[in-house]
């Protein structure tokens, strides 16, 4: 008779709580370690430039818009799909906002007029994001398109809409809106960073504490089981793409505020970067697992790396090329590491199953 090992094996962590348990396979712990190592390395290599408040602020300015995009792509990845059109949506939203601002606000407008203009512009941008996301959701959830192809198509379609509206030119913002992308609260904290944190908090609550969030994780883990549990897969899926669109619009607003411009060709590498940050942040590309805080940690890591490469390669164009190479390499390395840790975890759990099977076979 085989002996029954009474092991109190931890349940496989997944869903929003996985972050607290160090990630689905200890990924978060490893990520934290990596981020600390990069930080220490950069501080030692270029203490004069890296450890300044100015640098921290600069990194926060750059990272915030990517962070919002990464959270956006996380939402659709949780469902097992992906939204590749987020950058096009962001740019389109920025263009609409820029146009409205240009029409409603002039350099010598009264503060009330400025506030009204900004409110309308932001509202319109969010509406554009909602519409783009809703259309994505329609194709994927209602019509059953494969998400990759559907969002590849809408990526081009939204970009095309933006091109048609702007005729390829750049839309410029107004000076008053620069506050959103370039302003500082209390002379220290960048406004975009606050926007990112607020967005992250809201999304963490939605994903971790609401019924919708739970349903999304369940849908991503096993759509058939979710359906038979009574979850309206279509509605959950549709909502996730709408959220992705709205988040992309927020990113577009930040970009408009930071660069004071909107153009269909902005943010070329952002899709790859968002996916990299999401996967690095323990989001499972097949769906069902991942948390906002993992994504934020990954964002920090990637930003440190980016800034590090810039500092070490002295801002030359070579720096950009090496960054492109390193992002690709990093993504592949992370995928490999996740693969091995997943396999190791399966092996840890298997002996229990084997024992039970032997036991029943011998009887």
């Amino acid at each position, binding site marked *: 008779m085989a002996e029954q090992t009474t092991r109190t094996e931890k349940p496989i962590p997944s869903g929003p709580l996985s972050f607290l348990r160090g990630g689905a396979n200890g990924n978060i712990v490893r990520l934290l370690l990596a981020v600390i190592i990069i930080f220490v390395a950069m501080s030692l290599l270029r203490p004069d430039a890296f450890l300044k408040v100015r640098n921290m602020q600069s990194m926060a300015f750059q990272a915030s818009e990517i962070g919002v995009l990464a959270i956006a792509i996380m939402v659709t990845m949780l469902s097992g799909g992906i939204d590749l059109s987020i950058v096009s949506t962001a740019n389109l939203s920025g263009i609409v906002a820029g146009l409205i601002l240009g029409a409603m606000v002039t350099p010598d407008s009264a503060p009330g007029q400025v506030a009204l203009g900004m409110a309308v512009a932001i509202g319109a941008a969010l509406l554009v994001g909602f519409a783009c996301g809703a259309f994505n959701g329609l194709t994927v959830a209602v019509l059953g398109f494969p998400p*990759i192809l559907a969002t590849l198509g809408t990526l081009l379609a939204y970009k095309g809409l933006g091109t048609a509206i702007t005729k390829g030119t750049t839309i410029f913002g107004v000076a008053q809106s620069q506050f959103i992308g370039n302003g500082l609260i209390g002379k220290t904290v960048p406004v975009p960073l606050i926007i990112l944190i607020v967005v992250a908090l809201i999304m963490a609550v939605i994903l971790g504490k609401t019924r919708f969030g739970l349903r999304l994780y369940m849908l991503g883990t096993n759509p058939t089981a979710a359906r038979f549990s009574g979850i309206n897969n279509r509605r959950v899926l549709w909502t996730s793409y709408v959220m992705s669109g709205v988040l992309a619009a927020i990113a577009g607003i930040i970009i408009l505020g930071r660069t004071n411009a909107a153009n269909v060709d902005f943010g070329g590498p952002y899709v790859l970067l968002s996916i990299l940050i999401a996967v690095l942040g323990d989001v499972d590309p097949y769906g069902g697992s991942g948390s906002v805080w993992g994504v934020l940690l990954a964002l920090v890591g990637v930003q440190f790396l980016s800034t590090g490469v810039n500092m070490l390669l002295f801002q030359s164009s070579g720096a950009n090329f090496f960054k492109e190479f390193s992002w690709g390499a990093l993504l592949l390395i992370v995928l490999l590491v996740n693969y091995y840790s997943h396999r190791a975890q399966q092996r840890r759990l298997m002996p229990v199953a084997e024992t039970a099977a032997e036991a029943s076979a011998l009887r």
Partner: protein
Amino acid sequence: MLRKLFSQHEMIILLIVIGLSVAIGLINPAFFTVGNAFQLARAATITGIFSMGVLIVLISGGIDVSFTGIAIFAMYTTVTILANNNYEGGMLLPFVMAAAMGLGLGLVNAFFIAVFRLPTLIVTLGTLSLFRGAMLFWVGSDYFNTIEMPPGMIAYARAQLFPYTMPNGGTTSLHPTIFILLVLAVLVWLVLRYTMLGRSIFAIGGDREAAERAGFNIMGTQVIIYAFVGLISGIGGMIVGALFRQANPFSIVGTELDVIAAAVLGGASLAGGRGSVIGTLLGVVLITIVNNSLVLMGVPSQWQRFVVGMLILLGTGLPLLRAKLAEWRRLRGGGAAEPAAAPVKAR
């Protein structure tokens, strides 16, 4: 029987191509000139060569967006090496070098996808960045113009097939590259239709687990697929460099969507298990016509992207809609219980 012929996807695309051509020709008769036809042929040849690789990947249930990165890496590195050594010979060596590099890069893809079973979109997004970043950082980012290109390549670019004198006095012609496309297309068609390798590609795309249980060698097939795509992409990249008589390291990458759209329009499905050479070639023709003729039709160039994007959606949606219609009819007829909705998951 005629109904069955007309309901085939490839037939529908053919009809759309014919219909579109007639429509464009009515709006602007310049469409129907030999000069325009030859120009379309040149554009379509390059897209067509890349599309053969994309087709195979799509049938196997994956998606490869790194082929443009492989193409530019192979082309630019080859040109750099040859130009720096003052190469004077013909096109054979450049093609061989580019093909070999492409094969090597394709094997990198194969390593991650076949051995580790990682999601193909994300892996190839990563390798696209990896390849291009590596090339720009280590090989260089200088632009080679016509004078600096190896003379053998320039001579190749000037090769002519069926030279034709246009009414305005200039000459135009088909380029021999179209033979490369034809050979490639026939080769792919033969493999897909008449070999076990082709069967296994369809099998993997249709249902990976069933294919595994049936005894197909999944890993081996995938290695061959991605290595082959790399090879084709290397050759394709070399053709781009030769035909455009320049080596711009920032070119080629960014045109992935046209190629993928062509394959999808031609009937290949991202879910895998479907696709054909004829369909893909028709899709290439359709995309080429759309890309090059909107201007002829008086459509402002800024709407072009939007139109292509909507085309992709329509092209993807067509087989899906037809499947849904078929399901509807079955439901009406049989009155059976509602079938479970297909899981909507990307791969």
